[in-house]
């Protein structure tokens, strides 16, 4: 790759900096404790300027939970946990502390006043075992045995002690919203797309001048990854994962799985503060600290437990792949319970990452990992943002792990988005500066971008002249000769790294909520 291309495009080079590691719904079942509580397992977080026609001034926030839902997972499917607190946090000052938090709380209610639908069986009313008693097509459908609903609050300031206000339906002012039942199958819900769309609400957020949109419901998993291969010590030939002609050689392992999305589309003026256009975002989920299991379980829905006490955070997700392949196994639970403002405790995982060394082991290829320590390139990506791209203007901005989006960067229509984000944009000499790591869009192939970054792509771009101000140690000589060498397309091999699964195979919507109709449980 000609050096001058990167010298002339520090934005792009900086964009090469991305999270380390291959991914798997970006972050799911990534920590020991969260594997015991899938309903509060955050899997992905997307944050981007909306690219739906006419919505360019809005920012879409999508927080996904409950990973790898099998579409046939009845009879209970995947309701959200009514004993949990789901949150999306926004930092608009750069101090790594939330300034705005959107809180979601769920209620699951059996029909018929909590007793559930019954049938007259031989003169006796008997409760049915399913979540539906017939075909479903309407909001609050009479055939639903279980109603799922939620509220949304907005907190300004500290998430626990700040000022709380309730988000309301722009039509009528209701404070409770309905969640569609999961995609059970075509006999129950013949037109799931239409049914789910009826659960998109226009809402008023106190303190925001423009109405917003909210949707909560099951969606098709938007992440594409060569899952088993990656975690099996990258069980693929190096020649395969460096060959640009083979970026789609393998089917998406997790195709067919579903996930639950909490989606908000908020006017960007509602999220930013003053003249700062960059925002940092991350999602969390919390459970009550105390929980008693009832030794005499009564009838009801999820009646086995009685939670109480304060909220304890058990899930955290900002940039993709961090807890999955950056944080050590012994600290994964700790990371999930931590806040960005305390990320100095995890700095070593970024400055001295283990993933490149694991790749060396996987390929029995000593010397394959970059040698510039500390890895200032990864610090820039994970912890500070990229100057001129998505770094807070304040000179006192915190060094912390968050997904950073520059809301001043114009969105790009779906068809023109480069799957490699800013990196791909530079390589293609294009005009898409709105991709990962400048926020994250569903179409961005964060796995491939991450592989490039962790194996030293940014240092190649930084050159021997410290073009990108990443430090003189971050130069091409810190990258192995194998990865510095040009590939068949004339680009350094490190830029051709991929996991052989093309993110582009995932079908997506071009309108809110952007993730598409979930895979149905039965044809």
């Amino acid at each position, binding site marked *: 790759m000609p050096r001058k291309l990167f010298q002339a495009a520090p934005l792009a080079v900086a964009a090469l900096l991305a999270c380390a590691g291959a991914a798997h719904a970006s972050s799911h079942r990534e920590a020991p404790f969260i594997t015991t509580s899938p309903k509060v397992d955050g899997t992905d977080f997307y944050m981007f300027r909306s690219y739906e026609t006419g919505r360019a001034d809005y920012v879409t926030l999508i927080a996904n939970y409950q990973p790898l839902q099998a579409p046939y997972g009845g009879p209970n499917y995947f309701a959200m946990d009514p004993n949990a607190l789901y949150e999306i946090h926004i930092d608009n000052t750069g101090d790594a502390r939330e300034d705005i938090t959107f809180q979601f709380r769920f209620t699951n209610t059996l029909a018929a006043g909590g007793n559930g639908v019954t049938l007259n069986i031989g003169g006796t009313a008997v409760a049915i075992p399913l979540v539906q008693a017939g075909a479903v097509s309407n909001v609050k459908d009479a055939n639903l045995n279980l109603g799922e609903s939620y509220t949304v609050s907005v907190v300004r300031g500290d998430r*626990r*002690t700040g000022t709380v206000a309730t988000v309301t339906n722009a039509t009528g002012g209701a404070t409770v919203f309905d969640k569609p039942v999961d995609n059970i199958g075509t006999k129950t819900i013949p037109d799931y797309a239409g049914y789910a769309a009826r659960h998109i609400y226009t809402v008023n957020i106190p303190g925001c001048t423009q109405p917003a949109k909210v949707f909560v419901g099951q969606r098709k998993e938007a992440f594409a990854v060569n899952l088993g291969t990656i975690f099996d010590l990258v069980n693929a030939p190096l020649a395969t994962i460096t060959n640009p002609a083979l970026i789609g050689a393998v089917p998406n392992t997790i195709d067919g799985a579903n996930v639950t999305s909490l989606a908000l589309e908020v006017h960007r003026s509602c999220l930013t503060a003053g003249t700062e256009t960059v925002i940092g975002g991350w999602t969390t989920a919390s459970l*009550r*600290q*105390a*929980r*008693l*299991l*009832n*030794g*005499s379980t*009564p009838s009801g829905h999820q*009646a086995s437990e*009685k*939670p*109480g*006490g*304060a*909220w*304890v955070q058990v899930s955290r997700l900002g940039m993709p792949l961090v807890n999955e392949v950056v944080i050590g196994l012994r600290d994964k639970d700790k990371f999930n319970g931590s806040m960005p403002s305390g990320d100095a405790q995890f700095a070593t995982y970024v400055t001295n990452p283990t993933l490149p060394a694991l790749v060396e082991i996987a390929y029995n290829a000593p010397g394959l990992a970059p040698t510039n320590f500390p890895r200032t390139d990864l610090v820039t990506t994970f912890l500070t943002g990229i100057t001129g791209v998505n770094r807070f203007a304040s000179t006192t901005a915190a060094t912390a792990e968050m997904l950073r989006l520059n809301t001043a960067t114009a969105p790009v229509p779906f068809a023109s988005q480069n799957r490699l984000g800013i990196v791909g944009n530079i390589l293609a000499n294009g005009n898409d500066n709105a991709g990962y790591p400048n926020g994250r869009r569903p179409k961005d192939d964060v796995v491939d971008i991450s592989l490039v970054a962790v194996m030293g792509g940014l240092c190649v771009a930084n050159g021997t002249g410290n073009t990108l101000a990443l430090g003189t140690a971050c130069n091409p000589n810190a990258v192995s000769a194998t990865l510095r060498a040009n590939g068949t397309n004339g680009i350094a091999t490190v830029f051709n790294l991929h996991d052989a699964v093309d993110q582009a195979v995932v079908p997506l919507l071009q309108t809110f909520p952007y993730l598409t109709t979930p895979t149905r449980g039965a044809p």
Partner: protein
Amino acid sequence: MKIHHAFTLLASVGLVAACSDGSGPALPPPPPPPPAPAEVPASALVSSATYTAYVASLAASKTEVGTSVGLTLITGRAPSSETESPQPI
């Protein structure tokens, strides 16, 4: 042979009849019913902190039936807080 079996049967009936009129050894008394499961004490319901402390204090047991959360909690809510920080344990 049938007559022999008949006498055996009659003898057995007689033995059972003799036992049932109390003249034989008494059956052992039934075991005492298991103790009622402990319920959450009112002192644990004062606040989210006391509830958390109570739950944390419960020791694992291989023999207990299990703690009932009590009638109050079956229909109501356990103490909780939106603003408190978690208790150290």
